[in-house]
C-alpha cells in the first residue's frame, strides 16, 4: 500500500476516511445529540415537561404496572423518574407482541396522553448505535465496523502526523481554505484524540458479546446462556401459573436498598406480573458512579424476599462495566455532560474537515482531468454534514408544527417525523449535487432558518418561550435545547456569510488556474 509504513498508513487514513466518513459523521452527530436525548425528549413531548415531586413514592408506579398487567405482557420495565426524565416510563409488550412505551405522571401516576413521537431517546439514540436498520441486526454491524475503523483512523492519523505538538498551536484560518481545513482537522484530531479513542473503544466494548462472541462460545459451548448468570448474576424463573398480587413497590425498593445501602434504583423490571412467581429486578442508579450497572437485586414480587443480589466484582466484568459506563454517561455531572457534547461536536468537525480536505486537494485536478470523483464526494459530504443537520432540524420542526394526534393519510405523527427526516436528508443530497460549489452556503442558510423556526414554533405551540424556560428550573431542559438551537442558527449564519464572501474570489482564482 506504500513503500514505507507511514506511506501505507497515509493511504489507509485517506481511503478509509473518505469511504466511511459520511457514516462516521452520522454516528458521531447522533451520538453527540444523544448526550442530551432526554432533554430533546422534553422538548418534543411537551406534556412531559413536569416537575419531579419532592417525595416520590414508588407506589405511584402501580397504575403503570396494572396497565401492563391488563395488556397481559410477560414483563414490564418501569423506569424511575429522575431530574432529566421526570416521568414514569413504562415499557411492555402489547397483545400484538410489539414493545410500546407509555408515560405516566410522577405525581399522580395517571397515564399521560400519547406524545406521538419517538423523540430523542427512541429515534436519535438508536440511530447512533444501529442507524435504525433493524434487518438482520445489520445496523449494529455497520456501526461496529465504523467504530473499528475510527480507531484505525486514529492510529493511522497519529502515524502520519510527525509534528503532533506543533499542530496543537497551528490554525491559519486566513490562509487558503485547503490549508485552514487541514489545520482545523489537525487541531480537532490532536486535542480530541483521547476522547475519540476512548469513545470508539467504549462504544464497541458495550456490545462485546455481540461483536466478539467466540470466546464465550469456546468456554461455554452449549450453555452459552449461563454466561449472563455467571458474569452478572442474572436471575430467571418461570411463571407458576397461579394468580397473585404484587406487594407494595415501596417495600420491594426498601428490600433492595437494604442490600446496597444508599442510592435509589433507576428501574424496576417486573417479570411474570400477576403470577405468584413474579419477581422484580432492580438496578442501583449510577448517579454517583461511572459503571452503568453498579448493583443488581432481585426481589420476590409476592413475598418481598431477596432472591439474588450481585455487583460486578470480578475484574474483567468490572472493567467492561466501567468502560461501558464511560460511554453511557448515566452519572449525574452536568459539566462532564456538556464536555461530552462539545467533544462530540469536535469529532464531527474532525470528520467533516477530513472529508473536505480530500475534496479540496483534488477538486482542481479532477476538474482538469474531467473526473467526477471530487464532485461526487463533495455532494455526499455536503449531504452528510449540513444535510443531516437539516434533516434533524426538519424532524424537530415537524414535531412542533403538527399537533400530537395528527395523521396524514393514516400515518401518525411519530412516523411522519421520521419520514420527514429521511425525505429532508435525501433532498439535501439532490441540492448538493445540483448546486456544486454553492451548496454549503444554501444549506447553512437552511440550518439557521430551521433552527430559528423550531425555537419559534416551540414558543408558539407550548407557550414555553426562552425567557420563561430560563426562569423555571423544571424547564431548563427545554431552555437548553432552545438556546443550543439559537447558537446553531447564529453560527450557521456566520458560516454562510463567510463562505459567500469567500466564494467569489475563490471562483475567480480557480478559473485563472484552469486557463493556465
Amino acid at each position, binding site marked *: 500500500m506504500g513503500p514505507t509504513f507511514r506511506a501505507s498508513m497515509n493511504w489507509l487514513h485517506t481511503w478509509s476516511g473518505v469511504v466511511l466518513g459520511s457514516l462516521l459523521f452520522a454516528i458521531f452527530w447522533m451520538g453527540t445529540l444523544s448526550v442530551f436525548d432526554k432533554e430533546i425528549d422534553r422538548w418534543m413531548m411537551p406534556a412531559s415537561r413536569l416537575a419531579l415531586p419532592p417525595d416520590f413514592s414508588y407506589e405511584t408506579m402501580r397504575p403503570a404496572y396494572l396497565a401492563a398487567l391488563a395488556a397481559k405482557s410477560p414483563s414490564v420495565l418501569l423506569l424511575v423518574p429522575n431530574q432529566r426524565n421526570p416521568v414514569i416510563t413504562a415499557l411492555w409488550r402489547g397483545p400484538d407482541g410489539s414493545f410500546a412505551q407509555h408515560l405516566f405522571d410522577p405525581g399522580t401516576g395517571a397515564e399521560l396522553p400519547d406524545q406521538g413521537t419517538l423523540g430523542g431517546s427512541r429515534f436519535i439514540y438508536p440511530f447512533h448505535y444501529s442507524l435504525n436498520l433493524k434487518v438482520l441486526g445489520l445496523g449494529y454491524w455497520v456501526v461496529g465496523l465504523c467504530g473499528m475503523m475510527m480507531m484505525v483512523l486514529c492510529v493511522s492519523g497519529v502515524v502520519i502526523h510527525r509534528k503532533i505538538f506543533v499542530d496543537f498551536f497551528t490554525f491559519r484560518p486566513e490562509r487558503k481554505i485547503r490549508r485552514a481545513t487541514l489545520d482545523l482537522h489537525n487541531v480537532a484530531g490532536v486535542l480530541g484524540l483521547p476522547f475519540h479513542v476512548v469513545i470508539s473503544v467504549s462504544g464497541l466494548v458495550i456490545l462485546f458479546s455481540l461483536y*466478539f462472541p467466540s470466546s464465550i462460545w469456546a*468456554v461455554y459451548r452449549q450453555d452459552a446462556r449461563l*454466561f449472563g448468570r455467571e458474569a452478572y448474576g442474572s436471575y430467571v424463573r418461570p411463571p407458576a401459573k397461579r394468580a397473585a398480587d404484587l406487594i407494595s413497590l415501596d417495600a420491594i425498593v426498601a428490600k433492595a436498598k437494604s442490600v446496597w445501602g444508599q442510592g435509589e434504583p433507576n428501574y424496576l423490571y417486573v417479570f411474570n406480573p400477576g403470577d405468584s412467581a413474579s419477581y422484580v429486578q432492580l438496578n442501583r442508579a449510577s448517579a454517583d458512579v461511572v459503571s452503568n450497572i453498579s448493583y443488581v437485586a432481585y426481589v420476590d414480587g409476592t413475598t418481598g424476599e431477596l432472591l439474588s443480589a450481585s455487583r460486578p466484582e470480578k475484574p474483567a466484568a468490572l472493567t467492561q462495566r466501567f468502560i461501558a459506563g464511560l460511554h453511557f454517561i448515566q452519572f449525574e455531572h452536568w459539566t462532564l455532560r456538556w464536555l461530552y457534547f462539545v467533544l462530540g461536536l469536535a469529532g464531527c468537525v474532525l470528520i467533516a474537515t477530513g472529508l473536505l480536505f480530500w475534496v479540496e486537494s483534488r477538486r482542481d485536478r479532477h476538474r482538469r482531468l474531467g473526473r467526477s470523483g471530487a464532485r461526487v464526494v463533495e455532494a455526499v459530504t455536503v449531504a452528510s454534514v449540513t444535510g443531516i443537520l437539516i434533516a434533524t432540524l426538519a424532524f424537530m420542526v415537524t414535531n412542533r408544527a403538527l399537533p400530537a394526534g395528527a395523521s396524514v393519510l393514516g400515518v401518525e405523527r411519530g412516523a411522519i417525523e421520521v419520514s420527514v427526516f429521511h425525505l429532508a436528508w435525501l433532498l439535501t443530497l439532490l441540492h448538493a449535487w445540483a448546486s456544486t460549489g454553492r451548496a454549503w452556503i444554501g444549506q447553512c442558510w437552511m440550518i439557521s432558518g430551521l433552527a430559528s423556526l423550531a425555537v419559534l414554533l416551540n414558543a408558539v405551540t407550548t407557550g414555553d418561550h426562552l425567557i420563561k424556560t430560563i426562569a423555571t428550573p423544571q424547564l431548563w431542559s427545554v431552555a437548553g435545547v432552545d438556546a443550543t438551537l439559537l447558537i446553531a442558527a447564529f453560527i450557521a449564519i456566520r458560516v454562510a456569510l463567510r463562505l459567500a464572501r469567500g466564494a467569489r474570489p475563490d471562483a475567480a482564482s480557480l478559473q485563472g488556474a484552469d486557463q493556465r
Partner: protein
Amino acid sequence: MTKTLARTALAILGGYLGTSAFIAALAMIAVATVGMERSEAATLGSMLGFLIYLGVIIWSFAEPALVRVALWLGGVTALSLAVVFLLRPVAS
C-alpha cells in the same frame, strides 16, 4: 483495484475471523492453565478482541506482501481452531 479489494477483504473479514478464533483459543487456555473463571476469560478475551483486531487491520495494510498476510492469518486461525476443538472446556 482487485488487489486493493483483496487486501481490504483479507483485513476486515480475514482479520475478524482470525481474531475471533484467536480470542476463543486464548479464553480456553486461560481457563485451562491459570484456572481463570470462565465468565472472566470470555469477557477478557472478547475485549482484547477489539485491540487485536485493530492491530491486525493496521498490519494487513502495512505488510507489503499480501501472500504473507494471508498465510499468517490462515495459520493463526487454523492453530487457534485446533486449540479450541482439542482442548476440553472446563466447567467451573
